[in-house]
């Protein structure tokens, strides 16, 4: 299988691309010359990215660099205007069927959890399996309890999201996504809204998920997480992927000036 970066070699700071270590080589997601504008503002500039099944990518970069927009394009929460995005061989275009299919394959975890406050934790987890996958209720509940155990809060099943701590809510959100049995998980700054102590409990769940072989695309500033889990780290600035490397080289030997500046800023404390 072709390496993800060979076609971007004209970009100055692309570091040759690290071969995926954990992936089994099967292509899971590909973005091809993707461009997106918000009105006049060019948010995504010529993004090329290929992700193999089982691979873990960490996307970082300064705020406003387009990293959230990038992963939100992958499940069509945002629309791209140019280029091709395909997930599991399904191309994302205006065909609503494709969008529905992709959304079923792709789970997403948000910065602000976005749990449904009027439903209990259990109902939050069973809603989509019941109404999208048409899973029978008792089966959906069994599965929900299974995933709640995996994120280590089965005892909170009957509570409402508002009664849980931030870390617990985010773990419920992860479990909610997992209940749809996604092939890919997208994380949009999952720990940015959490207290320091709660960050760990969420990251632990994410690390475990990574170990089980989930394909993950994660926008985060948790550099420790990136070091231990990521197969590749992507650095974005002004809508472009300016650097892409394995975590080892990315942190120890950054090539791009913007990357060096960014790393010196966030690692200086």
């Amino acid at each position: 299988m072709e390496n993800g970066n060979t076609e971007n070699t004209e970009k100055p700071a692309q570091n040759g691309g690290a071969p995926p270590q954990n992936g089994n080589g099967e292509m899971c997601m590909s973005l091809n010359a993707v461009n997106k504008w918000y009105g006049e503002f060019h948010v995504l500039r010529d993004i090329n990215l290929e992700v193999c099944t089982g691979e873990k990518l960490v996307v970082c970069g300064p705020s406003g660099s387009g990293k959230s927009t990038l992963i939100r394009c992958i499940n069509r929460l945002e629309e791209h205007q140019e280029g091709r995005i395909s997930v599991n061989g399904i191309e994302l275009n205006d065909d609503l069927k494709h969008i529905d299919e992709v959304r079923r394959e792709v789970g997403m975890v948000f910065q602000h959890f976005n749990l449904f406050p009027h439903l209990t934790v259990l109902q939050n987890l069973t809603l989509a399996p019941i109404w999208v996958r048409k899973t029978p209720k008792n089966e959906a509940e069994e599965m929900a309890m299974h995933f709640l155990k995996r994120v280590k809060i089965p005892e909170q099943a009957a509570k409402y999201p508002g009664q849980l701590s931030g870390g617990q809510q985010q773990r419920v959100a992860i479990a909610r996504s997992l209940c749809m049995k996604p092939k890919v998980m997208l994380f949009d700054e999952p720990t940015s809204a959490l207290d320091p102590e709660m960050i760990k409990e969420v990251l632990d769940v994410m690390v475990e998920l990574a170990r089980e072989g989930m394909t993950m695309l994660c926008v985060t500033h948790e550099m420790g997480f990136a070091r231990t889990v990521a197969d590749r780290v992507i650095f974005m600035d002004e809508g472009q992927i300016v650097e892409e490397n394995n975590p080892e080289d990315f942190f120890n030997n950054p090539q791009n000036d913007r990357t060096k500046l960014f790393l010196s800023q966030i690692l200086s404390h």
Partner: protein
Amino acid sequence: MHADTVVSDPLIQKPRIAAAVLTAAFAAFFFLNFADTSFGRMLAETTGGGDSFARAGAALALALLFVGNLVLISFFPVRIQIIAVWLELAALFAAFFLVFDLNAMFIQSKLWFLISRGLTTTLYVSAAAISIAFVIAVAGAIAKLSGNGFAVAIASFYTSFFRGLPLLMQVYLIYLGLPQLGFVVGAVPAGIAALSLCYGAYMTEIFRAGIESIPKGQWEASRAVGLRFGAIMRRIILPQAAPVVIPPTGNQFIAMLKDSSLVSVIGVWELMFLSRTLGTKTFQHMEMLITVAVIYWILTMALEVVQARIEGHYRARR
């Protein structure tokens, strides 16, 4: 409002304030001139003073009574204060109604008919109209927010038209206008149609605001798990909009209950119609008007209780 933790004595217990209120009350009562009331005449007779003495005396007595009452009540806990003031105001109203020297026998003889015919019609018309208005409002709100040109245009034209005309005119237009097009409608269906179209327009705006009050993260999370529009609306957005929408919708229902009196002009035998017709023969208009007023009032109080219950239900789930 959130109460301050600093608790001060009730204002009325401060001598200066009490004196000021007393003066103001005296001036007001003096201006209103109670000398010619039974109380004033009694005062003039017992003290032997003249008319102006009676006027001042009555005003002073009433002012003292008023301020004394305020001071007395201010010493009780808030709950009791509220109940006491309610009872006093209710007594004043009752006294006001008694002035008309109503014929209780006449009221009694008509009351059952007022309830069995008038009240049931009023309730039936209002309930039917609010149910239809509810459906219109959900559809209208979704249409207005849809971004579909036709839907937005139709919905906004509808709300503009039905909020722009007086309800009375809409009642006439539907009852007298539709037959011109070849549709002859009965008075009751015409009344229900007018009420539901008018209130549907107001409620469309309420529902639109309710739907818009749900943060976009809820939409995104629902879409991310693969839910489609219909399911998102039914399972996620509307249940969360409900607590926002219910207080103003309750208000609308209470308002509609009374506006249903407007369909009396096309001959529907509801409360208002009966109140105007039942007393005509014997010129006992006041009896019927006041009885029906009381029925409307009791009805709205009952509805307020129901509304509070529903609001409480949603608050408990938070």
